[in-house]
């Protein structure tokens, strides 16, 4: 593994009596695609929410690039280069596709109390936005309203918005959710291309995709790490097979 970019130390989060994250430690190496898998209710989304800053952990630390970001709000983490794409699509539906991404660029370009210059002709905003759309293959849709895109395209747009801030690391929360087979394979190709440029933490139910893409995999059950390692090690791990993959063959995990 490369030197860790993201380091999670003894993270814990409870909701009332329910332990969502239980003494969880994790390292994501620079340049790796690190996948998190686990059955429903394993605390994957809660973990992402804590990493992105949407939820505050009860105890434990999150370090990004050597610095403690546990107490930083979401947008400050975002500015440091930790970008999250949302599981539930949350776009600016009545703005154009390009405007959506340009706003994400603008978020990283200082304050927006600039009242006069035409932002729609501002190369400093538009060029990175176009580049991000190019990367996800939506460039020919740039001038359509976001509302006119398909569900799969919305996911790609989400991804483009995450890319627009020139992040160092992507937190991807189930990017395949709700996609058809064709869109899914398009997304896998996309992630494979992104993998070369970014460190990625991927939460995903689609096992085929995970094992095809991941450099390392961590398995969560009830908020705990039960195994962590290379895909082949995980596949061979008895505990994982029992607790998780065994179930998958019986159809509990879709």
């Amino acid at each position, binding site marked *: 593994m490369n030197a860790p970019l993201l380091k999670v130390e003894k993270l814990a989060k409870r909701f009332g009596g329910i332990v969502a994250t239980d003494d969880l430690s994790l390292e994501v190496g620079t340049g790796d695609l690190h996948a998190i898998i686990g059955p429903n209710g394993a605390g994957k989304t809660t973990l992402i929410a804590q990493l992105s800053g949407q939820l505050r952990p009860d105890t434990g630390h999150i370090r990004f690039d050597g610095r403690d970001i546990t107490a930083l709000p979401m947008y400050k983490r975002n500015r440091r280069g930790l970008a999250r794409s949302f599981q539930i699509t949350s776009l600016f539906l009545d703005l154009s596709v390009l405007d959506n991404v340009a706003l994400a660029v*603008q978020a990283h370009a200082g304050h*927006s109390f*600039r009242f006069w210059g*035409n*932002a*729609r002709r501002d190369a400093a905003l538009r060029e990175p936005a176009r580049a991000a759309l190019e990367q996800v293959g939506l460039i020919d849709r740039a001038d359509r309203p976001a509302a006119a895109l398909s569900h799969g395209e919305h996911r790609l747009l989400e991804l483009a918005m995450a890319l627009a801030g020139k992040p160092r690391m992507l937190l991807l929360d189930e990017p395949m959710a709700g996609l058809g087979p064709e869109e899914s394979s398009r997304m896998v190709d996309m992630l494979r291309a992104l993998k070369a440029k970014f460190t990625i933490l991927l939460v995903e139910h689609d096992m085929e995709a995970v094992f095809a893409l991941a450099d390392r995999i961590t398995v969560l059950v009830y908020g705990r790490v039960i195994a962590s390692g290379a895909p082949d090690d995980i596949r061979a791990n008895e505990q994982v097979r029992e607790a998780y993959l065994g179930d998958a063959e019986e159809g509990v995990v879709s």
Partner: protein
Amino acid sequence: MMPALTVRNIVVAVLLVALALLPLYAQLAHDRFLLTLFTRIVILAMAAVSLNLILGFGGMMSFGHAAYLGIGGYAVGMLAHEHVYSGFVQWPVALGASALFALVIGALSLRTRGVYFIMITLAFAQMAYYVVSGIARYGGDDGLTIYKRSQFVAPLDLSNKTQFYYVCLVLLFGAIYLVWRLINSRFGLALQGIRSNELRMRAIGFPTYRYRLTAFVIAGTLCGLAGALLANHTDFVSPAMMYWTRSGDLIIMVVLGGMGSAIGPVIGAVALLVLEETLSGITEYWQIILGPLLLLVVLFARGGIDGLLMKVGRRQDDEVRS
């Protein structure tokens, strides 16, 4: 970039040229009333343009916008009453007072959302109405007559009706240009992002409250200028200037004209006021027609006149239309 020759752009161009040539026609036709009517239309159009910045582009459903008409108007009226006639004093005071009121009201109202925001802006505007009604020194309920219009340097004379019309028209064009620049700027894009999905904007790091409040204050200030003009136009100010139905009228103009463009409210203002004038020529009880008509527009013609014109035309360009 040259604007494309769509039906809509042609209609807008014709409208602007007609507004510019109107005094000439009024003189030729010896129709003094026409000039008075259109001076009023131009001033209220400016108020509607300012409202559209927050309503159309900011998604802030303010129902108290007429308050700034009153505040701008009363700034002129009160100063004239105290024998301060210089426009260089009156107008900045009108703008400043409106900005201050917008800042206070906005800071409070923008803490809330949706229906609360509608009701609260309405209530605060009505508070301003009652306060002004209660100040006996400046006429209270009865209002205040202005004996001298705002005075500027020599050749400019606001008591000349044609000159005054052109002052209003130039300021209206200026307001449209200002709003057009604003909505295409980074600030404006952020504002439209907030209208569209405020939570997401916050998540990606925009302090949305500050942007909303800034837009609210700009809109209020601009409307204060319209108020100063209105006071000069009628040579009279009264609490009725800021009665809540006037706020309703401004919203109608914005929606009728179409909220998607900086110039839409001008179309709406012309349409509404000319319609009122026409209907009141037909029957004394013209509002009995206007009311249901409004309901029909809401039910069947959202997007306003501008939206209809856009449908007639085909091309939609990258720019937000001017």
